[in-house]
């Protein structure tokens, strides 16, 4: 209904924007409340509102749905009103109508009795005034006062009335031990999921540089190959947000890049950074990790597994001696062979392999065929050149505050999982061994996680990543994963991630079980997110919230 004296309800955060409504057919409950809105109030899903409650308390909620209701009993009423379906018919007056917002209850301010604060989660009665939540209300709603560890800036909330509130995550729920792992998903290009994870990494690096180190896998062009160089893409709003969040507008520090070798001794990377090391694999580095190398090769009868085991067990002092086990049985003894590098291994005779490892005659040619396929890139060398490193060894040098970037963008797709798996296993190994000067927490960022740990997979690489997700919370190895479709990554990774960042997501994907932690209305709203908007869900919030974050302060290649 019109109001002859109109003020702008959005201009003053202290003015009531409506009142709660709890009618017979749709009463307020412990989990939600509804309110009608004053005319001209602009409110959107994910806005925080606060309603007066009993005992002088206030309840903060987050808008999940906005309904436009009128006194028309049905669509047919409107059809009849328009002269039985005549679009040009003009009504004498507008129908009685109102906007009604539905909000999920987040938190109540509570009342104090006998020195104890008790929150009220009884339903909010009708006719209680409702306001836009201010910064204090929002910080209460997201439990800033309950943070156990360090506050990690995680973005800002833009309220429709212009209020901007910084959001922080609890390090205890991000990096363990209460909860750990962050997973980001969303449509490619629109969802800015990798950018968001990098923003979180920057926040953590500035807040906990003495405790945390980072390993980042660069999987797309040169996106993350200049993160220690100052960028020039920040605008005034970005700088304002960094200030608001209490972060410095500076790129990452202590960054070391590891690039794959290409032909001619040059790195096989798009736009290599100024300083880098090249990495490569000799047989001696990875003889015990053939399960990772052959991860995508079907092995229904475990013949490859036998071969892998024998190589691992028989390797001694930098070499592998392959000799027949039972020469008398075949009547002719194959000549034993010494294997020190990839070429040696590929040259071992098939008969010898059959006799030495008790394999079926068709198996050795198959093993060698796969070995040729998987180790044909310059990554696999008989002897590393000066300056080349093995990542599994180098990773042991990482210390708190360090950022290791491993570039795998131009590595053949079949080899990328091996590199990731090898690093992960090395990390797993060193944290299992518990070396004394290890960083307290090691954050591993893997983009396109679905390529390395797809849903339903049980390969060695998937198992390796799942192991980190399963045990990393207590050990301190934290996985930050990003992918387009959450449903396409291993369910244990989804289940073990305490924080989910979701960018715009399609309707078919959002209906899958991987998003079961979102209610139906949140799912609807996720489908309509804009570029740069992220919906964040944590175990400590009763409902997901929408945030934005500033562009990175490091150099971005256009």
């Amino acid at each position, binding site marked *: *209904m*019109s*109001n*002859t004296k109109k003020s702008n309800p959005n201009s003053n955060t202290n003015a009531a924007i409506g009142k709660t409504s709890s009618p017979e057919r749709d009463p307020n409950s412990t989990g939600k409340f509804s309110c009608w809105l004053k005319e001209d109030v602009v409110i959107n899903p994910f806005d925080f509102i606060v309603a007066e409650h009993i005992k002088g308390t206030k309840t903060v909620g987050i808008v999940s749905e906005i309904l436009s209701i009128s*006194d*028309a*009993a*049905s669509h*047919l*009423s*409107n059809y*009849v*009103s*328009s*002269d*039985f379906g005549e679009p040009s*018919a*003009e*009504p*004498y*007056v*507008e*129908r*009685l109508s109102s906007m009604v917002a539905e909000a999920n209850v987040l938190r109540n301010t509570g009342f104090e009795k006998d020195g104890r604060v008790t929150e009220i989660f009884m339903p909010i009665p009708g006719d209680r005034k409702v306001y836009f939540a201010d910064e204090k209300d929002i910080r209460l709603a997201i439990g800033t006062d309950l943070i156990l560890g360090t506050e990690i800036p995680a973005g800002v909330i833009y309220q429709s009335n212009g209020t901007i509130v910084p959001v922080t995550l609890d390090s205890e729920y991000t990096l363990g031990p209460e909860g750990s792992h962050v997973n980001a998903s969303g449509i490619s290009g629109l969802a800015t999921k990798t950018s968001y994870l990098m923003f979180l990494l920057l926040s953590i690096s500035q807040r906990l540089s003495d405790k945390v180190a980072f390993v980042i896998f660069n999987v797309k062009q040169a996106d993350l190959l200049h993160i220690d160089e100052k960028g020039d893409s920040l605008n005034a709003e970005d700088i304002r947000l960094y200030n608001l969040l209490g972060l410095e507008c500076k790129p990452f520090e202590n960054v070391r890049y590891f690039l794959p070798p290409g032909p001619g001794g040059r790195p096989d990377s798009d736009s290599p950074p100024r300083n880098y090391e090249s990495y490569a694999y000799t047989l001696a580095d990875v003889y015990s990790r053939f399960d990772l190398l052959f991860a995508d090769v079907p092995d229904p009868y475990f013949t490859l597994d036998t071969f892998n085991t024998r190589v691992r067990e028989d390797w001694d002092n930098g070499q592998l001696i392959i000799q027949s086990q039972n020469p008398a049985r075949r009547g002719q003894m194959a000549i034993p062979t010494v294997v020190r590098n990839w070429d040696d291994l590929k040259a071992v005779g098939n008969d010898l392999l059959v006799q030495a490892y008790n394999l079926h005659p068709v198996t050795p040619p198959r093993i060698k065929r796969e070995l040729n396929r998987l180790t044909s890139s310059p990554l696999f060398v008989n002897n590393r050149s000066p300056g080349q490193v093995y990542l599994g060894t180098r990773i042991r040098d990482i210390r708190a505050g360090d950022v290791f970037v491993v570039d795998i963008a131009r590595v053949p797709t079949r080899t990328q999982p091996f590199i990731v798996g090898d690093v992960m296993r090395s990390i797993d190994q060193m944290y299992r061994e518990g070396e004394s000067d290890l960083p307290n927490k090691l954050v591993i960022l893997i983009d396109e996680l679905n390529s390395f740990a797809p849903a339903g997979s049980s390969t060695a690489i998937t198992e390796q990543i799942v192991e980190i997700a399963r045990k990393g919370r207590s050990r301190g190895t934290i996985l930050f994963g990003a992918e387009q479709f959450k449903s396409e990554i291993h369910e244990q990774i989804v289940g073990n991630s305490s924080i989910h960042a979701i960018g715009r997501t399609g309707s078919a994907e959002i209906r899958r079980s991987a998003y079961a932690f979102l209610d139906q209305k949140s799912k609807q709203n996720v489908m309509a997110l804009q570029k740069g908007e992220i919906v964040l869900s944590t175990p400590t919030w009763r409902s997901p919230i929408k945030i934005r974050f500033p562009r990175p302060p490091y150099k971005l290649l256009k």
Partner: protein
Amino acid sequence: MPRFNLVTEIAKWRSVGQCLSDGDIVLSPFELPVEEERRGDPDQADDNSNFAGADNLCVSIEPSLKAGKKPIAGVRSQKDRFRFFLDGSIRTKYIGEYVEGPLSFPIIVSEIAVGVMRKDQNRLSPADLQKRLYFVFPHKDSNLVSDSTYSRLDEMRKKLDQTGSFSRIEFLKKADVTGDIRNSLLGKVRSLMHSMEHEVAGNLPRAGTDWLIMDGAIRKQEFLNLENTIGVAKSFSRKPVFSINKGQLLTLSAYMRNIRDGERSCVFVKNTPTDPILKEVVFWYVRIRTFPPMEPLGGIVKIDLKLPNNKELSNSDASLIDDISSEIFHMRAPTVYPWPRWPNYIYPIRTAEMYMSSTFLSPFSLSQIGQEMKIMMEKRTRR
């Protein structure tokens, strides 16, 4: 309107009960206020009284209207004249029967509301709302109440009136009792509502050009003092018969059968009015909607207008009536479908009804009034 406070009002209801402590109340076993349903359509009943008996002939004062009807849909002037829309509503609870020695009478309590909507451009907003709760008792001249009880009730009435209370007391005089006492008490409540309607209408902040529509007929002499006011009734008497240009007499249904969407009837006066109101009021009918299958009076509204010199309609009066009819016709949308009698409703009046109903006491609260009255009666009996 005094601010409503349930606790304060409960104290008053108990005080009213205290006035009745010489007798006892046999409470009604029915919890819901269903009293209005006993009486049928009150608007129609009011209008029936205008055409009671054989004196029901109405004559046209538009001799130029040979066909007995006129298209008005397209004659609406650019300017909307109707600014205010007023409606009154009643919710009554039969508390029970009061018995004091050999005397007895029914006790009813009615919540009366009068609401007004204001129209600016094409938007409606609330303009006024007045509410009262009435206990209506028989006057002592009816010999249904003892002098001492009446005296206490009258004292209480004065006290409540002086303080401008939400809860009030009124009496039904013997002269106003016709037939069943309960129906007569309801009639009294209705009369109180009409008085409130008049009071509210008279206090509206109207500019000279602002017109008012009152729901129903122009029913009281006082209404004739209101300038630029019409009554629009969605239900009305079927009793009148019509004489058009001294032709064959037509019953209402027979006449309305030929009035189509966007047409109005001739303007009529009662041939031999006895009620002073009818001497000054002309009326006519407008069909705002036809939707077969529809009874002949479905979609018809009856409009009352004060027109003192009403022997023959002047051109300017005819033009005014056309304009009014046209604007009323355009009020047919939005509809209130599927509300009962929806084809006869005009939306702003329905909005006023909703405005009032949203503020009524809950049926539960109303049904508890008898219990509250008894609390004080029983206390006094125990002493």
